[in-house]
């Protein structure tokens, strides 16, 4: 079976996010005064061949921590979106 999976990689709490902070600083001038706490992250969409959704989650989880993120500064979350 083929599963559509998404992996979200976000900076761990406490880790500085200069990109998010810079975007946030620019917002008032653009008229978005009521927006704050901007954090940036990466998202990956992939298709995983596996016997079950659980299997797909496992493969993607290992991929997420080994390749798509550096656990020292990032958290990775895996969502099995459905059958591809």
């Amino acid at each position, binding site marked *: 079976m083929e599963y559509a999976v998404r992996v979200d990689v976000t900076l761990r709490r*406490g880790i500085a996010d200069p990109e998010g902070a810079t975007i946030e600083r620019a917002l008032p001038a653009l008229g978005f005064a009521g927006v704050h706490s901007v954090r940036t992250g990466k998202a990956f969409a992939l298709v995983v061949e596996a016997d079950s959704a659980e299997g797909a989650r496992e493969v993607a989880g290992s991929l997420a921590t080994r390749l798509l993120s*550096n656990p020292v500064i990032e958290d990775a979350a895996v969502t099995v979106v459905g059958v591809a």
Partner: protein
Amino acid sequence: MSDEALHRALGLTDDEYALVEGVLHRAPNHLELAMFAVMWSEHCSYKSSRLHLRRLPTSAPWVLVGPGENAGVIDAGDGVAIALRIESHNHPSAIEPYQGAATGVGGILRDVFTMGARPLAVMDPLFFGPPDDARARWLVEGVVAGISGYGNSVGVPTIGGELTFDEGYAQNPLVNVLCVGALPRERLVLGRASGVGNLAVLLGSRTGRDGIGGVSVLASAGFSGADGAASLDDEKRPSVQVGDPYEEKRLIEACLALLDEGLVVGIQDLGGAGLTCAASETAARGGVGMDLDVTAVPLREAGMAPWEVMTSESQERMLAIVRPEDLAALEALCARWEVRSAVVGRVTAPVPDAAGRPVGMVRVREGFDGPVLAEAPAAALADEAPLYDRPRARPADLDALVDDDPVDEPAGDVAAELLAGLVDPAWVYRQYDSQLFLNTVVGPGRDAALLRLAGPGLPASERGFALTTDSNPRWCALDPRAGTALTLLEAIANLACVGATPAAVVNCLNFGNPEHPEVMWQLSEAVDGLAAACVATGLPVIGGNVSLYNESAGRDIDPTPVLGVVGLLERLVAPPPGWTWRDGDTVVLVGPREARPDPFPLAGSLFARRRGRRGGRLPAFDERALATCRFVAGEVARVCAGGPSPVAAVHDVGAGGLATALGEMSAASGVGLAWGDPRGHAELFTEAPGRFVVATRDPATLLDAAASAGVEATVLGVGAGERLTLGEWCDLAVADLAERRASALSAALGL
């Protein structure tokens, strides 16, 4: 945990704790303990190496600022001064290669613009494990991307470096960064607080829980008997520093503008040990005290404890000392550059100690006139860490190693060996902006980088300066004293290739665990070797950095002193000769053909290392080689000044020996060479600095000039054809040399 266990967990020994009590005449509280722990760490206090570093010669008439300040500064002529500094970011880069390397660049830039200099260029000596390993590749790609990402974006070109692969660095890569800056002489400032009542203003980023390394044990549940590390909750885990080159760029522009306008009386970057270090160093240098309001520090995260604020290593911050009447102007200028500024303290008068001597005190308060949370003499924090003369012992296995001379190593396939030595690091340096400021005459990829002495805000000048970084752990493992001296010679030879006369040295001493007597012996020997070579060449050491505890799986790295040397040219109006010879050029080896007393030994060579042979004896520092360097530098300088010289191409004989130098030049030229009589593979691969391959269209003049300078010169042949032929030993197509050289690195990295 008990307070006793606490100081150990913070990295202070029982004796050091007793010293702190002696300084304070009482037991330190936890905040004070944290401040002493970071300031007396190896990283900040150089407590294991300082005794040795004192043996380095540091003065010369042209030195404006020697070691001890944030960067060394020399007079470069025409009213321009050059600031130079090197540092390591080895351990952070092993954990998070991108950010580790990026923040290494950020840190070294701050050391340079702190002096009032605009950072003009960076160099990055790098050492990794063999690239056939996935982790090594991850490190290489991450580190290079980090230097590229930060350096390019902050707007400082990276103009050279080194790239070494060796299994000794597999777990512990070395990431050193050097920065050079330039300033109009009169803008020179020192990291000094002065003027009682002046304000301490923190500029730049907010403070977060970044890089609160060793002291993070303080986070462990109020020291209530719980075991430190294990009970660290996730939320408070010390975090990796993230660099923000955009913040740094604005900080550079704002600080240089503040200095131009005379709005600060002293300024200092925040690096290791953060605010504690900046406050105690500026106060100690100025002989004054400083009160800091810990609640005035702008924070990135809520709920930070005073010890966290005082030891945070958040990046892109500076501490400026400002007269109160200049504060408004400073704030306006910072606002223009969108740089945050906050008054966090003020300079205080020294107070008499028990013996009546004035002592500047650093006091941390809660509110400007609020309760004092911590109090300690600035000088005790900054300068009075205990200095250790740690036991030294010549490694027991060294004799056996030295006896295992690779003289008997058979030639093998010389052509294959030559090809294996051709690696162009272009994949690395193409990722670096190497041209900003329109002053790069020779960028990365040749022997040394060569720049015009020009940059925004500098007085006009036709002068030039050159930079190189060099190291040779293969030599230093065999004999750290001779190896380090020869490394300096190699650097001088590299500078000679672009016509520069060496002027000053900085060093980054990357060594293993100083608690191993063998490592301390290596360090001490390396320092003596550098000192002797500096005396022999008349060069001052104007700065340095020591990185210890570099070990992989319990094995210390080979001693890796990295030298950065800056050289000067009086006039730079034409590019120096490159590596390329033309059809019909005569190719000459300039310098002694028998480079070592023992003809063509292979000890310490790349050739021997590739065959697993690490032993043998190194040659001594050779005065003839120095004379050769001077001769070549003089000829090339004439070319750069727009004058005549018989030199049409030049390259020094470095790693990989004469075979590699000829291979590189022939590949760059696209023109071959037939050299009839190499005396064997040892002559082709022996390594001894201070020899050059020179191509000329006027061999008679070149040979005459060499002879009258007392320099040996041997004609090897005439550039022609499409093959590089080295006697019976090797016959290769020039196109194959070029192809191998161009693709070797990406192939090795699997890209």
